């Protein structure tokens, strides 16, 4: 979690130094979700389809910080050769795409293929509260339930769709949306990674056991802006949520142990940034020829 936090903070720093172009959507504040869930997935078998805010999921699943940083920095060593950028990643069984809702039917199709092949894979798709405004989400819930597909729908409700608070974008209940399709749901209002990890373990085991979809709703919050500077939220609200910072709640590590982990992460991050800055820029094939 600390590495993801520092990776994302570093991206914002690199942006402010003019070393990155395009855009990025950081995972700062939501790290416990990705880490708690992904630990139960097998990158060799299971699949993830993530969204625009995908770096935390990507790092937890692939541990490929260099490929991601190069991708965001437009370097040739980027995991997609610099073609995808921040929100269009692919490595092994990990995919992400940048249009909200668009990814949900694709993750459903992945589950259908894996079920047909008998691999036992769980297809995880990360949604947010904003994604619940997109109609294909509901078509996919219907299909996943109807065809009994092993899809883990994770809703990370961070209470904002870009600048719009959830109260202005969603009517009714979030878990009831999936329950209406006959999908088992669980709602969790914690930022404690251990609690999320335990709950996710039960959920993934349940999907592996039944082969049927599950809808996991996590109450979360991002401390960072939607992308870079676009934040109009009340600072007092952000401060109040910081009291439940996943890096601080339920802290179980000894001070020395925590410090050692942080130092290892910082060293790895510094080396990764230095290597990415030295990496050659992505160039077109015609230039390369």
């Amino acid at each position: 979690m600390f590495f993801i936090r520092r990776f994302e903070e570093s991206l914002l720093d690199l942006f402010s130094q003019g070393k990155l172009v395009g855009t990025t959507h950081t995972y700062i504040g939501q790290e416990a979700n990705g880490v708690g869930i992904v630990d139960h997935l097998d990158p060799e078998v299971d699949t993830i389809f993530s969204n625009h805010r995908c770096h935390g999921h990507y790092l937890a699943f692939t541990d490929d910080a260099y490929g991601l940083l190069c991708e965001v920095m437009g370097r040739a060593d980027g995991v997609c050769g610099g073609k995808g950028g921040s929100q269009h990643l692919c490595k092994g069984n990990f995919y992400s795409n940048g249009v909200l809702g668009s990814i949900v039917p694709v993750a459903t199709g992945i589950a259908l293929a894996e079920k047909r092949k008998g691999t036992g894979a769980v297809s995880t798709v990360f949604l947010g509260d904003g994604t619940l405004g997109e109609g294909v989400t509901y078509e996919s819930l219907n299909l996943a339930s109807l065809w009994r597909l092993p899809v883990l729908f994770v809703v990370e409700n961070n209470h904002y769709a870009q600048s719009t608070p959830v109260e202005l974008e969603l009517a009714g209940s979030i878990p009831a949306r999936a329950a209406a399709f006959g999908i088992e749901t669980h709602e969790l209002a914690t930022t404690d990674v251990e609690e999320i990890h335990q709950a996710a373990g039960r959920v993934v085991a349940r999907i592996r056991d039944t082969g049927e979809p599950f809808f996991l709703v996590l109450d979360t919050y991002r401390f960072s802006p939607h992308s870079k500077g676009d934040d109009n939220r009340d600072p007092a609200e952000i401060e109040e949520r910081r009291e439940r910072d996943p890096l601080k709640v339920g802290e179980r590590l000894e001070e020395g142990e925590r410090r050692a982990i942080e130092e290892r992460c910082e060293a790895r991050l510094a080396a990764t940034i230095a290597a990415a800055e030295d990496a050659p820029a992505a160039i077109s094939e015609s230039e390369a020829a």
Partner: protein
Amino acid sequence: MKRCVQVLNETLHELFVERDDVVLLGEDVLDPYGGAFKVTQGLSDAHPDRVYTTPISEASLFGVAAGMALRGQRPILEIMFGDFIALGMDQIVNGIAKFREMYDDQVTVPLVVRTPMGGRRGYGPTHSQSLEKLLLGVPNVVVVAASECHDLRGLLTNAVEDERPVFLIENKLMYGRPNRRPDDGHVGELAVRETGTRYPALTFSGTDFSEGSVTVVTYGGMLPVALEAVTELIIEHEIFCEVVALSQLVPMELEPVFESLARTGALVTAEEGTLTGGFGAEIAARVQEAVWSDLRGPVQRVAARDGIIPSARPLEDEMLPSVADVIEAILVLEGVRS
């Protein structure tokens, strides 16, 4: 001679036997119904676990097929009416067409979308259109138009074996017609040449390719209209034209058109979709870039009027391009009309 629907149906059955990775998804495709146009007849009885009848959820189904293709399956998605591809445009434009290139060739998306386009059946504004031109501006997809003279077995088989996403545009009137394949190099009185490409173009000539007045380039459901027009011109006016029937519309490959233009020097484009922003516009642009000085007149476009397709047959007939419209365009280039 087999009807086109029968050839497509037999090919699906063959593909299901030959390849374990082929599955089919679509609305109302189960037997005994067998699909709205009966192309999938018998398939679900023969392969019950590989034919998925779906909810009416086209927007998602394109994505489901894409997900299956990403994971090594060869899904064939039947969209009941071509008009409904509008519901899938996000999946098509932002997913299906992009995954391979934006993921730096780490994946392929080998799916086939089969769908019938075209009017002349009185189905009205939302069930009669020829919307394949919406895919003309989408990089990285393949659009193939079937016609009653093409090797339909070959087109469908090659589409399934293609690593790229392929949209196979079928035609509602075509289904019930005989698959008129060239016999000894001829369809009727016209000599025919066929390219050796994956999705071939057919060129028809009334003079065995010795001379010609005008080239008509067309595809799909407009092919029989164009053939009727050039046949009538031979009989009524002794004007001998060539017709090029493309099957691969996107990415556009016009080599057979250039070859024909070398013999004729004048071009008419004929399509059933609406005029503006259509295939004729793109073909005209490419032809004038490549062979401007060889043309003896401006490219003439025959297409549907820019409007809706009415339900009432006389109104529909007036809207859609006719044999008379094709003849008129040829006569303009021949200097017979202005």
